[in-house]
């Protein structure tokens, strides 16, 4: 395994990974970067397969074929709206694989391994298991198979630290005693820890958790490099762990919330824990033809899209409306909140899918100064990212930077119902005198507005 040519091939793969991450950070080279990463991974796997005369070779190849048969169609067919949960799932199985690798290595050489490798094994099982079960819960939340609101039950404030301490204790026990039942117990408690860790994280904070778990899997893979004395696993895992940690901090910064309150806020009662119930306070509603008139006679219109747009698959209808308005001389741009959608940058992906020109997309800092001189803001399926409650202290989203839609001349919300957004808190802007609401499915509403506009 440690022949020179294998090590050199691993070095080539590691270089590919560094260049892949570098490329993925710039719009121009992102796709090439990803391809380079795939090439590096392929080199690594092929070299590993031929470097040594392994037992069970047919079974290994069948397992790889099986994994490809699951992974490729899932990645090809997934709707772009459902992509965050697929990434979470892919991350989870990676973490699970790392935990199993360390477990199997422990079972086969447990008695002979040195203290360093043993410590790394216990650590990999712990982190890998947390990442696996945490990612599965994230997947269930995003897929709508369980509530997206924070789940807190009595005693959780106690149970979470107890599980954390128990898993660290078991890890130390494994290192001290090399006991096989104990490493299975470690895996079980760590799985529980992952579940408890993600359950109280609510709504809008889920993307940050995916990013964090992604970094955690990277760290687990790096630790497995220590276990197997494999430099490539060490380098690749560390790269992902470090870049993932930085990315998580950048995302938390984009949301204006410290990472601690994102993760543990619900436990101390200050997180995105909201009512989730529909309000019955009076609002002004209007019809599609009214919206068409308002938009046509406006000079400047800003569209603020949110996850509701993606759910309704209304990107195409929205683009049609914007193109029509453009033909009539209305200046239209999109105001994109950094965390609109379910992951940072998610909305940019969705709008790019609908062929919206890049120049029309404006980031929050760019659009906010323009809002006081904007005639109409059309909010399509967004809520939390325009909620002025973020400016007053003491609310679940306090401190999150928002798009200052309330400064525009008038606001039209396209909403399915009066239910609050993902963060589960009421939006005062809905009851503002300059706000009007068009109820219904975003795609239908936009199509009706387009029809009305054409007949004007």
């Amino acid at each position: 395994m440690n022949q020179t040519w294998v090590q050199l091939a691993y070095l080539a793969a590691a270089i590919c990974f560094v260049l892949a991450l570098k490329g993925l950070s710039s719009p121009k080279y992102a796709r090439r970067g990803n391809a380079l990463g795939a090439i590096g991974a392929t080199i690594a796997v092929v070299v590993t397969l031929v470097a040594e005369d392994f037992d069970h070779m047919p079974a290994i190849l069948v397992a790889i074929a099986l994994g490809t048969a699951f992974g490729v169609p899932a990645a090809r067919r997934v709707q772009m709206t459902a992509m965050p949960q697929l990434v979470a799932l892919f991350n989870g199985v990676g973490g699970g694989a790392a935990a199993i690798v360390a477990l199997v290595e422990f079972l086969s050489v447990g008695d002979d391994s040195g203290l360093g490798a043993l410590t790394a094994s216990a650590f990999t099982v712990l982190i890998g298991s947390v990442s696996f079960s945490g990612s599965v819960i994230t997947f269930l939340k995003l897929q709508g198979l369980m509530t997206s609101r924070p789940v807190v039950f009595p005693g959780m404030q106690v149970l979470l630290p107890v599980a954390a301490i128990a898993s660290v204790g078991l890890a130390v026990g494994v290192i001290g005693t090399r006991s096989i039942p104990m490493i299975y117990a470690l895996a079980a408690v760590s799985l529980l820890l992952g579940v408890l860790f993600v359950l109280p994280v609510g709504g809008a904070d889920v993307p940050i958790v995916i990013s964090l778990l992604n970094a955690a899997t990277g760290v687990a893979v790096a630790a497995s490099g220590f276990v197997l004395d494999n430099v490539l696993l060490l380098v690749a895992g560390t790269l992902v762990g470090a870049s993932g940690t930085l990315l998580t901090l950048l995302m938390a910064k984009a949301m204006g919330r410290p990472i601690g309150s994102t993760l543990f806020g619900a436990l101390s009662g200050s997180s995105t824990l909201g009512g989730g119930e529909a309000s019955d306070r009076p609002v002004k509603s209007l019809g599609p033809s009214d919206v068409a008139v308002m938009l046509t006679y406006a000079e400047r219109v800003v569209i603020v899209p949110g996850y509701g747009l993606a759910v309704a698959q209304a990107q195409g209808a929205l683009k049609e409306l914007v193109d029509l308005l453009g033909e009539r001389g209305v200046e239209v741009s999109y105001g994109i909140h950094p965390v609109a959608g379910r992951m940072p940058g998610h909305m940019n992906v969705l709008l790019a899918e609908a062929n919206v020109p890049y120049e029309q997309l404006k980031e929050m800092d760019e659009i906010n100064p323009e809002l006081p001189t904007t005639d109409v803001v059309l909010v399509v399926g967004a809520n939390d990212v325009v909620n002025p409650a973020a400016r007053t202290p003491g609310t679940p989203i306090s401190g999150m930077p928002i798009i200052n839609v309330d400064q525009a001349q008038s606001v039209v919300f396209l909403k399915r119902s009066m239910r609050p957004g993902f963060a589960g808190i009421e939006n005062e802007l809905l009851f503002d005198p300059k706000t009007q609401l068009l109820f219904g499915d975003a795609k239908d509403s936009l199509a009706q507005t387009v029809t009305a506009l054409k007949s004007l």
Partner: protein
Amino acid sequence: MDGVALITIFVLSIFVGFEVVSKVSTILHTPLMSGANAIHGVILVGAIIVTGHADTDVELWLGLVAIVMATVNMVGGFVVTDRMLQMFRPRQSAAKRSDA
């Protein structure tokens, strides 16, 4: 390889990991996360090694499960990232594609 050498590589890799993504724009957060996610699928290498050395049925089956999981992570991860990035293509080439 001795422990100190491994730790040296580990520490230097941390700096490289921080450095390469330090200037990423918000637009690319999602594809970057997804691409990094695919890269840690290289745990497949580890899964192949432990499975190839498996002595008992338990080790073999656990190893094979790890191979399937790691392959899903790696292959699926790169494919889904590529799909995301496909949508960021410049306008001209996107138009050409729909003409073809």
